[in-house]
């Protein structure tokens, strides 16, 4: 079982490469305005590879201008050799085939999992035991638990998929493994919703995406609503919920997941090699 660290910030990447992780995923998962410059990407790649760790490039969902930047980056990385690219946008998926050295991985934003929903109940209507069982069997599935969808992605070279730590969905993840996918399991934070009208930037009075000072690199907020009975976390243009990682679940996944992913995110104060190593130790204990 490998452990990767996900970050889009060079300072955090420096902490990650010094940690006990096996690979670093570099690049934003959610925000196209955090796509690094070409020079920064080169520097990040050299740093990671120089430390003998695996380099994985992460891409977000993107607009027209974003896809051009991603294209430029893919061209560069394709010259470096065989590299995995996490894809969260169908446009990026469309062009990845032009780069024979790059291997597509399906990012979380291309895998629909209803159970990312933060509400306690999965239906508003009081239902009986059998009806509830039926609903649960649908609700905890993923969009990959459909044979033609699996065939489609495998035909396009996808072998690895990113999923979230949602214990009720584990049986359906097992089915993906049986179909030949390698599972990359995100720890701690589950994305509940994302926006292009960045909630954090608007809350803090940022003027425009182009001039954004990226406060999300160091800040996060907790959002509480007592009527909805939820606690959520705001970081950048994403709203997360926290997931509880029990010992039992960890053991279950250690045998099944190909990769655990630790996101360097201020919402969980994951900002140093010490914290990364502590979490890796917990996973292995």
């Amino acid at each position, binding site marked *: 079982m490998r452990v990767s660290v996900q970050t889009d910030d060079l300072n955090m990447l420096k902490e990650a490469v010094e940690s006990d992780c096996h690979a670093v995923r570099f690049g934003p998962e959610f925000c196209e305005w955090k796509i690094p410059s070409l020079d920064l990407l080169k520097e990040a790649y050299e740093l990671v590879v120089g430390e003998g760790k695996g380099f994985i490039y992460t891409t977000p969902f993107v607009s027209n201008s974003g896809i051009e930047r991603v294209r430029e980056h893919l061209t560069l990385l394709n010259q470096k050799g065989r590299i995995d690219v996490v894809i969260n946008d169908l446009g990026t998926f469309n062009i990845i085939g032009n780069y024979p050295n790059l291997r597509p991985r399906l990012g979380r934003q291309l895998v629909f999992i209803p159970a990312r929903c933060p509400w306690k109940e999965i239906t508003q209507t009081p239902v009986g035991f059998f009806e509830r069982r039926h609903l649960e069997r649908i609700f905890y599935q993923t969009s990959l638990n459909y044979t033609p969808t699996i065939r489609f992605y495998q035909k396009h070279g996808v072998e690895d998929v990113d999923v979230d730590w949602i214990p009720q969905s584990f049986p359906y993840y097992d089915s993906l493994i049986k179909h030949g996918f390698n599972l990359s399991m995100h720890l701690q934070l589950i994305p509940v919703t994302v926006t292009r009208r960045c909630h954090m930037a*608007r809350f803090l009075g940022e003027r425009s995406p182009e001039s954004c000072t990226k406060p999300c690199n160091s800040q996060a907020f907790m959002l509480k609503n007592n*009527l909805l009975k939820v606690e959520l976390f705001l970081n950048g243009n994403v709203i997360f919920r926290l997931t509880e990682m029990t010992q039992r679940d960890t053991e279950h996944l250690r045998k099944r997941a190909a990769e655990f992913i630790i996101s360097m995110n201020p919402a969980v104060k994951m900002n140093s090699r010490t914290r990364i190593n502590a979490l890796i130790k917990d996973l292995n204990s």
Partner: protein
Amino acid sequence: MIESPSKNLEKRTPKLISPIRSFEGVVRVINAGADKVYCGVRMPEMGHFVLYRGSYAEIPTYDELGRVVKYAHDHGVEVLLTVNNPFMADIMDGVTRRHIRLCVDRGVDGLIIGDLGILSLVRDMGVDVQLYASTYFTSMNYEAVNFLGNLGFDHAILERHMTIGEISEIVQRSKIGVEVFVHGAGCSNINGKCYLFHFHYPALDRSVKGFCNPCNLPFEVYDVNDKEKMLENIPAMDALTGCSLCLLPDLIGTGVEGFKIVGRDAPTALQENITRLYRELIDLITCGQIEAFWERVESTKRTFMAVPPSIFTLQERLCEEKRCYYSPLFHTPYRIPLSLSAWTKLQFSSIMVEE
């Protein structure tokens, strides 16, 4: 080189695509000027599985769909079926296949699909109808739209969090037809990547000014480093947009093929009124009566009740907070002070809710 939107103004008139949920609805929106209608149909086997809309937003039976299609076709209007699920799993294959077959047999002209699995299923069924890629695909760039075109889609409906310039570029660099939403609750978040499902909690009935999605509710905001001290209690996620009347000339200029109105769950009267309004305004623009267009827009803002029986006009509910579709991405509507008239009405409506 990307053409400016105005150069496309005379290229084509976008089709107006209205939501319906009943036979009465199709009669009224066609009478109001819809070019196409779209609808869902209740799937009996999935009764309690609700993600975004309750079954009240859907045509209740396949027979009623048959009557809707007959009426629409008699009036030269196409009917598009929204295949409701944003995902597909093996256990849903049988019921979805049966559902699509029953709807296609009733004569629908197109399917709005939001998942690659459902697309595979439809192609496997050999169904011969137009295919529309839903906003669930989050199409925000021309490569994504062309990818969907290569898979067999005839049209793509774009994500709402975009600018006019981005839409225009996609239209010019895409191989398939492009459609956009123009009116109704434009989500605060990316439609296809949002899991704040619209279960009908009592809380949602109490949100401000008739907005009733979870993202419009106030949240207590805390710094994660100090969870004792509340910073604010505000609708921190609220970036909802709702209208594009003022943008219509620019949107037509982008060359999009269709304007879609949100609201399968809206009251029939609202579906009809919005359709009539947009029909009139599109016609004024395409006939070159720009001055009359702007006069009509201004009068509409002051008099149009945004959500009957809402007490707010369009001006009070949307314009004052600049809740325009395709507006600057970092605009913060909840920071804009309410006008005196809106504030007064809000106090009045709060009393009504409490009672």
